[in-house]
């Protein structure tokens, strides 16, 4: 639906995402705007800059926005009417296209003076027919956010860093196609608090709760720890190595 090079049209009163409910045409427009806001937010959560820890405040605010949209969609009933067909392909396009949108605006924000407005104008009006497929594909992309949140804060988590955002993005796509919420949960649950504990222990923070975890880390007994470490990617070998040293000592 969103082809590169396709000229985007301006909305009248481009800015107001609330829109008005006047007219039937306006109603799907609001939903679509909301949907694209949701997609944009998800992409923002994923596209964190990997060498440096992402800004926690920004991540929290974006995640809260995602949650708000989700809640509203649930209340609206937009949620229920979605048929969870496997529209992996469509959702991929959507996320990628939003990515293109975000990237182009970011690039332009980098050095040149380019007005920010007008970039958030989707070419929805010309593709009314596609509305249904788009709303249907929302299910897949929206299921991810809840678990994405945990993925984000555990920023201290090694999973997102080291330029691995592409990998985690792939995981999202994979899970979207598989359509099994459990696996999604498992996928993100492995990135659990144990990293924090290792973190806080080694940075010398004094806190009772953390001390308890430290003990368990040293004896390496809790299943979560082993699970997480065994599921670590190859480039987490540094962390593995350090943990091994701790255990052996």
């Amino acid at each position, binding site marked *: 639906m969103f082809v590169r090079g396709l000229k985007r049209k301006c909305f009248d009163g481009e*800015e*107001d*995402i*609330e829109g008005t409910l006047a007219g039937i045409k306006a109603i799907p427009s609001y939903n679509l705007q*909301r949907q694209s*806001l949701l997609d*944009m937010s998800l992409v*923002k959560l994923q596209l964190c800059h990997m*060498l*440096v*820890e992402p*800004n*926690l*405040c920004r991540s*929290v*605010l974006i*995640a*809260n*926005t995602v949650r*708000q*949209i989700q809640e509203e969609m649930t209340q609206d009933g937009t949620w229920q009417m979605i048929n969870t067909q496997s529209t992996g392909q469509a959702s991929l396009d959507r996320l990628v296209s939003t990515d293109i*949108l*975000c990237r182009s*605006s*970011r690039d*332009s*924000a*980098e*050095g*040149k*003076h380019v*007005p*920010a*407005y*007008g*970039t*958030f104008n989707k070419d929805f009006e010309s593709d009314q027919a596609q509305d249904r497929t788009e709303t249907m594909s929302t299910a897949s992309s929206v299921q991810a956010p809840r678990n994405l*949140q*945990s993925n984000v*804060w*555990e920023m*201290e988590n*090694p999973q997102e*860093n*080291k330029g691995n955002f592409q990998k985690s993005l792939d995981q999202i796509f994979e899970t979207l196609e598989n359509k099994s919420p459990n696996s999604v949960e498992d996928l993100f649950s492995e990135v659990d*608090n144990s990293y*924090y504990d*290792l*973190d*806080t222990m*080694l*940075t*010398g*923070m*004094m*806190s009772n*709760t953390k001390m308890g975890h430290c003990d368990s880390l040293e004896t390496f007994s809790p299943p979560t720890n082993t699970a997480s470490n065994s599921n670590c990617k190859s480039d987490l070998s*540094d*962390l593995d190595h*350090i943990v091994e040293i701790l255990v052996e000592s």
Partner: protein
Amino acid sequence: ADIISTVEFNHSGELLATGDKGGRVVIFQQEQENKTQSHTRGEYNVYSTFQSHEPEFDYLKSLEIEEKINKIRWLPQKNAAQFLLSTNDKTIKLWKISERDKRPEGYNLKEEDGRYRDPTTVTTLRVPVFRPMDLMVEASPRRIFANAHTYHINSISINSDYETYLSADDLRINLWHLEITDRSFNIVDIKPANMEELTEVITAAEFHPNSCSTFVYSSSKGTIRLCDMRASALCDRHSKLFEEPEDPSNRSFFSEIISSISDVKFSHSGRYMMTRDYLSVKIWDLNMENRPVETYQVHEYLRSKLCSLYENDCIFDKFECCWNGSDRQVEFSALYIVVMTGSYNNFFRMFDRNSKRDVTLEASRENNKPRTVLKPRKVCASGKRKKDEISVDSLDFNKKILHTAWHPKENIIAVATTNNLYIFQDKLN
């Protein structure tokens, strides 16, 4: 790396420190006033430059720790040397800046260049004397306060007891003693047991200017909490909670983001505090928690552009704010208070509390010749643009003024654009 990330005058106003993204601190010193030229105040020239923080690599998390200086705070001067605290995301350092303008000459056992003399050639004794030399300004790190923050430090604030200070990151606030680097007390901790439940972070914190057991911290949800350290060791329960109820007519998906407070500053008297959120500056009376006493709109014309600003991440920009100098706040036996904050397109705004007037000025070399009076600017929100007005769509969102500072005694202000520092003063007649 030359992007300015913090600006701060010292307590006398004679020195102005800036920190940048490359971890450097540059200190400017005001020239002594020339009695014959009473129509200008002294200019600020570079006094000292030093590398405060270096980039580090956290091997455990495989992440870089940026050397960008987030905040600088000066200590009040106690002796000939000056002291300041500078911090990056993880480590706070106490720097001593001292002058050396004399050096000893005439040692008996050493030559002037430092080589030792053969003792057998020494036939007379002399007393070494101090001789003047070119002024040298040296900066040396006296204390390093490290390893106490898991998250990114956003604020430091020196207590009015001048012995302790606080440092705040996204989820915790720690209390330090300036002499002790291996211990700090955690006084606020809002980290949830389950990080998935995290919905709010700490955005700024400051000690009260007069009461050494009182401090405030602001959050990403637009609340300010005032805490009293005498109440308990861990100040997780606030003494006061300042929050303005949301205006339902302005509600949007971006309401929470724009309510996030980016800066909080007590007034010099300690009676009021000022907060900056994305679109406005609010003045709060510490005695009234349910709403601010004043609200100033900084760039209300951006409210309809929030979606685009969200997309290009500008909505997350953290603007600071400042009060005018303390001496000025009580002038002509009336309170004379002005607050200042930055905006886009290299604009900055000032609000005069008494006259309720406000002005928009621009920090730009192209548009202002040196030593000329700044021309007020106006942004045209919609409709027909008048001459000399700038339309919202032609604002440059890459030119943002996030950091400003006001001289503690005079009407001199320092305004930082992305790469440049501007110093303005009011016209003296």
